[in-house]
């Protein structure tokens, strides 16, 4: 290999006429050789673990990834965050992933039934809250003129939101009129929960239905978090699984950390409830 590297620049110089006697050509060969040698792989080969995770897990996965990489220097975690529905469809269309973490069971089951993922495990729970302009209460959400942003029904948070609306319709304190008024106030359906949050915080809408964990530690002059009454709220279940063609060592390493005390503590710090 090295001999080839050394010969090549010399051939180059000879072909182009002036031969290797000229000083410029010899220096040129040296530079060429050095740059080629520098490109040779110097790092040790690291195995990638590709994690596709719901966007509400951004910080959690980041923390877990650090723990995994510190404990296993030969592993490197690569992440892809989007709405769970987008990730599930990407995997079904052939995207390479080792671990898949969803914010609801629908999309996990979709992949398992299609044979793209194996053995799902619940690992965390979350709740919905409303982020709204300061001064608005939960009852104000049904006032005409209040603009609400939710996730589309295909998105876990959007589906949970619609289930909350159904529970509001069935609750004696609120009733179907309240739920209908809420639906009328919806002005946009986003494709992931962080897009909902972003649009609301930009000041364009009065309120948005997001996860409790997304607004944890929010310090905003104009917006505050309003809890959803316990009798109509529900628990969002997060699931994790390895994909059918996962790198087992990497996937297992990641999932072990997540379910170990270290991982559970990360989840609790970020506002999730452990399972």
């Amino acid at each position, binding site marked *: 290999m090295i001999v080839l590297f050394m010969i090549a620049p010399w051939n180059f110089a000879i072909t182009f006429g002036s031969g290797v006697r000229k000083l410029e050509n010899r220096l040129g060969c040296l530079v060429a050789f050095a740059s080629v040698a520098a490109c040779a792989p110097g790092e040790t080969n690291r195995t990638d673990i590709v994690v596709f995770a719901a966007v509400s897990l951004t910080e959690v996965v980041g923390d877990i990834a650090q723990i995994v990489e510190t404990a296993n220097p030969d592993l490197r975690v690569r992440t892809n965050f989007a709405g769970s*529905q987008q990730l599930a469809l990407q995997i079904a269309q052939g995207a390479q992933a080792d671990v898949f973490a969803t914010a609801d069971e629908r999309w996990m089951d979709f992949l398992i039934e299609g044979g793209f993922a194996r053995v799902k495990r619940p690992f965390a729970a979350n709740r919905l809250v409303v982020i709204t302009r300061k001064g608005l209460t939960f009852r104000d959400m049904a006032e005409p003129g209040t603009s609400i942003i939710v996730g589309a029904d*295909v*998105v876990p948070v959007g589906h949970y939101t619609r289930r909350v609306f159904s529970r509001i319709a069935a609750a004696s304190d609120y009733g179907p009129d309240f739920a209908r008024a809420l639906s009328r106030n*919806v002005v946009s359906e*986003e*494709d992931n929960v962080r897009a909902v949050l972003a*649009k609301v915080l*930009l*000041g*364009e809408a009065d309120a948005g239905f997001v996860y409790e964990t997304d607004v944890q530690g929010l310090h905003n002059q104009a917006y505050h978090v309003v809890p959803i009454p316990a009798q109509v709220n529900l628990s969002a279940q997060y699931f994790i699984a390895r994909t059918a063609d996962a790198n087992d060592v990497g996937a297992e390493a990641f999932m072990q950390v997540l379910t170990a005390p270290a991982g559970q503590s990360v989840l609790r710090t970020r506002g999730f409830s452990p399972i």
Partner: protein
Amino acid sequence: MSHADKNDRWFRFGLWTGCGLLVAFLTLPLASLVLSVRPATLLAQLRQPPVLDALKLSLITSIAASGIVVLLGLPTAYWLATRDFRGKRFVETLVYLPMVLPPTVAGFALLLAFGRAGLTGDALAFVGLRLPFSTLGVVVAQVFMSAPFFVAPTRAAFLSLDPKYRQTAATLRSSEAYTFWRVVLPLTAPSIVAAAGMCWARALGEFGATITFAGNMPGRTQTMPLAVYMALQSDFDGAIALSLVLVVVSISLLLALQFTSSGLFGQTTTRVTR
């Protein structure tokens, strides 16, 4: 064979290969789309309310947007074609910017300008206008992104008009307005129609700025491209049906424009003398 003939053969070979590769690359996705359709489900899909809503909304907003662009773009193109002034290059760059600006960036900028919390938010609210999440907001996003597609070719059409027509009109003491309406416009009409067609096509296909600025609400702001995007995340058959409709509309538009007197891109072949 002579040296020249051999070079020509290689040249033609290169032309064919390059052209063939590009055409094949451009045709394959369209062919795949057509081949993935299941005729039985296609008609059923096209009758679904969300699909019909999206189609109606797309047509109304894109035609409205094109109308606005033509109204405002004609004076702009004429101004840029006939006047020279300090800072002209800067103005030109501004007018053509949406052509190269990533649509999502444009949508975000529109929010910062015309959003409720934006620069003109209060002024708009005073007049009773609330642009984000409204159908009018969709039109605004489409106007922003498609304007350069009208102004650029229209200006080129004005520039390519033989100056002798305007000079002759001037010697006959016609005012600039009269010259514009009676001489310039009729002569450049085919090119302007083609430019309006391009603008409409761009408005019809507008996605990034729309979803960021106007949001995504079936019936109100969910145009066809947005409906396809959402359908891709849940219902493939619906996505295929919607995509096909968009493709058919776009192809029909381009074909129709190709058969106008000047075609879409003017002359299509140059005579090459050997």
